[in-house]
């Protein structure tokens, strides 16, 4: 019971973690390269959500220092996640370019078929 209560108070962390596992599951079980890429993005998003959730403080406002606001959320996670998002975008863009090339060379987006085609030629 105590465990469930803790999980309920930390529900935002829990959701992020569940999202992470969903992304990982998709990554492991799906064969389509685009789906794998989406799974990667889901995982990254889960981590970003988790990181931003760390910065929340009860009753805090966005950290813009305007008069009249006393309590702010922690600005560090938000600042770091900006960097994280840009990195994730870069990875996705490059991966999409590689997917375009893979489709051009192999004519399929199924990872098993690609391995099969490559394997036949090699060995």
């Amino acid at each position: 019971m105590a465990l469930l209560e803790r999980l309920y108070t930390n529900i935002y962390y829990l959701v992020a973690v569940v999202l992470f596992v969903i992304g990982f599951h998709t990554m492991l079980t799906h064969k389509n390269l685009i789906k794998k890429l989406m799974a990667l993005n889901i995982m990254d998003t889960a981590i970003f959500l988790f990181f931003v959730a760390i910065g929340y403080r009860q009753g805090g406002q966005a950290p813009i220092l305007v008069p009249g606001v006393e309590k702010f959320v922690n600005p560090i996670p938000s600042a770091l996640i900006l960097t994280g998002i840009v990195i994730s975008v870069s990875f996705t863009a490059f991966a999409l370019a590689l997917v375009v090339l893979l489709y051009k060379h192999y004519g399929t987006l199924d990872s098993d078929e690609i391995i099969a085609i490559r394997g036949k030629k090699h060995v």
Partner: protein
Amino acid sequence: MHDLILEVVNRLLLPFIQLFGMYILFHGHLSPGGGFSGGAVIGASLILYSLTFRFAKVKHRMDHDTSVFFEAAGALIYVGIGFVGLFFGYNYLTNRGVFPLGVPGQLWSSGMILVITLALGAKVSGTILSLFQELLEGGSDEHGTP
């Protein structure tokens, strides 16, 4: 392809989108936003432009060299700004003591932050457009040194 409605609506919308992007850029140190978000909005407007109008026309106006130039220039301004601190005897990328900070809360304040935001805006919009162009052309069979 030639679609009158799309073109007219776009002509109307584009200035406002870009103005909003500029607003985000210039208010990066005052409100949520900054170089990456503002640059992304402007970059998106350029993508919209090239989707609506004929791609060749856009390429004529904003070809690959231009976007490469914007990216490299943005990054070089960033790196160069760091050297200003070195020049005044401080460490790399120093703001306080090197740049005039102004009055916090006003538009022309925060020294280096504003300059870097604008440089990043130019860089990010160039990056987004050139990623779009590259991926669009990558599907075709033409090869050659860019």
